[in-house]
């Protein structure tokens, strides 16, 4: 059984078919990328998985449970943590407090209205560990809004990791980064994904990034899956060639 399974997932906006009968799965420990040209439905698909928008048809299964009707914050509570396409942080809080608040979300006593020293201590422990994994310990006390763009992107990943997610969902992790920043970020992420302890689904249009990070690729075109497999197979697929890569490989 796959950890995350999409069955015939469809999203229609009026007459426009944004996501068309997508069936795919993510195995435990897999790093999978969803790619496709602009307007292929990547972001719509991402929204369906995170629960930000409701599916017109089809189901999302997580660990054998049907979560199609579960709200976004509920899915996060179950272990689906996400990062945004446009960096989304708490700009006036320190990087450390950002990861603390992220970790606190997984505590049963997260809403405790008094005291809470133990809750904060545990959140700080998890948050600091996540900062260290992303190499951000040296900027931990700085307000998140003042970090470099690259560090802000990594901080968002640290926040997701602080939640100890069962699946990490990333929406274009290198969006808006310069060439050097992208290279650095990809190095850090490649190191992070290397040991197979994380299950990752990322949506990305930068081919270099995808081929370095992902071990499985799903190709979307006009909302539908046109190819699925390891990077070599996908690269060689003629349908993918004509739809997207345009002779890249």
């Amino acid at each position, binding site marked *: 059984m796959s950890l995350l399974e999409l069955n015939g997932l469809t999203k229609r906006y009026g007459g426009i078919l944004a996501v068309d009968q997508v069936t795919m799965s993510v195995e435990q420990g897999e790093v999978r990328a969803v790619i496709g040209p602009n307007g292929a439905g990547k972001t719509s698909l991402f929204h369906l998985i995170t629960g930000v928008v409701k599916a017109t048809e089809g189901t999302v299964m997580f660990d054998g449970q049907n979560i199609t009707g579960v*709200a976004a914050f509920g899915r996060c509570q179950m272990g689906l943590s996400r990062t945004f396409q446009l960096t989304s942080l708490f700009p006036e809080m320190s990087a450390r407090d950002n990861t603390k608040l992220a970790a606190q979300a997984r505590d049963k006593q997260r*809403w*405790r209205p008094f005291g809470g020293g133990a809750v904060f201590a545990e959140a700080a422990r998890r948050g600091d560990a996540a900062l260290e994994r992303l190499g951000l310990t040296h900027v931990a006390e700085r307000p998140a809004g003042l970090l470099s763009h690259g560090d802000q992107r990594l901080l968002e990943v640290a926040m997701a990791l602080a939640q100890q997610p069962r699946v990490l969902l990333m929406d274009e992790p290198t969006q808006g980064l310069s060439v050097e920043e992208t290279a650095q970020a990809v190095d850090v992420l490649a190191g992070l994904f290397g040991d197979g302890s994380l299950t990752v689904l990322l949506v990305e249009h930068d081919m270099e990034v995808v081929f370095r990070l992902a071990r499985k690729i799903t190709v979307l075109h006009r909302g539908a899956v046109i190819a699925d497999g390891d990077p070599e197979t996908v690269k060689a697929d003629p349908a993918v060639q004509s739809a997207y890569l345009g002779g890249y490989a």
Partner: protein
Amino acid sequence: MRMMLAVAALLALMPLGLPPYAMTLLTEALIMGLFAMSLDLMVGYARLISFGHAAAYGLGAYTCGNILLHTDIPLPFAVLLSGLFSGVIAIGVAWVCTLATGVSFSMLTLAFGQLLYAVAFKWTSVTGASDGLAGIPRRPGPFGTTVFDTKNGFYYLTMACLFGGFLFARGLVRSPFGAVLRGIRENEAKTLSLGYNTRFYKIAVVAISYMFGGLAGALYAAFAGFANTELLFWLLSGQALIMVIVGGTGTLVGPILGAAFFLLVQQQLSSYTDSWALFFGVIFILFVLFAPEGILGLATRRRASVGTH
């Protein structure tokens, strides 16, 4: 903490030195301070701007008035019950208002306040319509004590409510719950995506805010001996927002100082001119332009700069 004990001791000694009319003003300032502080929980910590906080005040005042007029419940219990009642009503109000965000949220709070105002004019048997409720007594007890009936006794009751409310609110904003509120203030979408049901937190903080706002209104009804529709009018909601901003948002202490400052200026200016509000408007604008962090911010900034030289 030491600072707070010192302030408490100072306030507790006030009846020994101040003349009765000053004690009246000080009691009113503490009541208004509690009211402004309750609004700060929403405005300063969750960026939920309410234009209708008078609803909490009026609800508490009318509830307390009715309890004291029609039952034998002792004054302190009547006041606490009224605060709780406002808080419970606020859960329904907040459930509706949090369907919207930003300016729309503010407009809904205003609409609810004005709705109560209109109802108070029509529901004569409960509110006395435009005459209001007059002759609200301060019922004795518990245990037959009449101490809260005296001017100074009532002052101490008000002080206890203010400090109790402050300690509760401070504990709240420093708790895990408070950390989530700050998340909502800075980036609600992100807070939601981290797995927090942000609407639950917003409804809860509005209810707590109304509870203390209602407590303040209840104290006022017993303090003044009457309750009328002015306590539900939007003007009071606006004044409370001004007290919060002038005092310093997101500080709890600031709005209490802001309320005292507002009443003092009002009292001084109104003996010279009827258009005192015009002058206070100028003061408000100066604060917004040159000291957006409010009175408390000014005080701590001064202290910080003294400390470094």
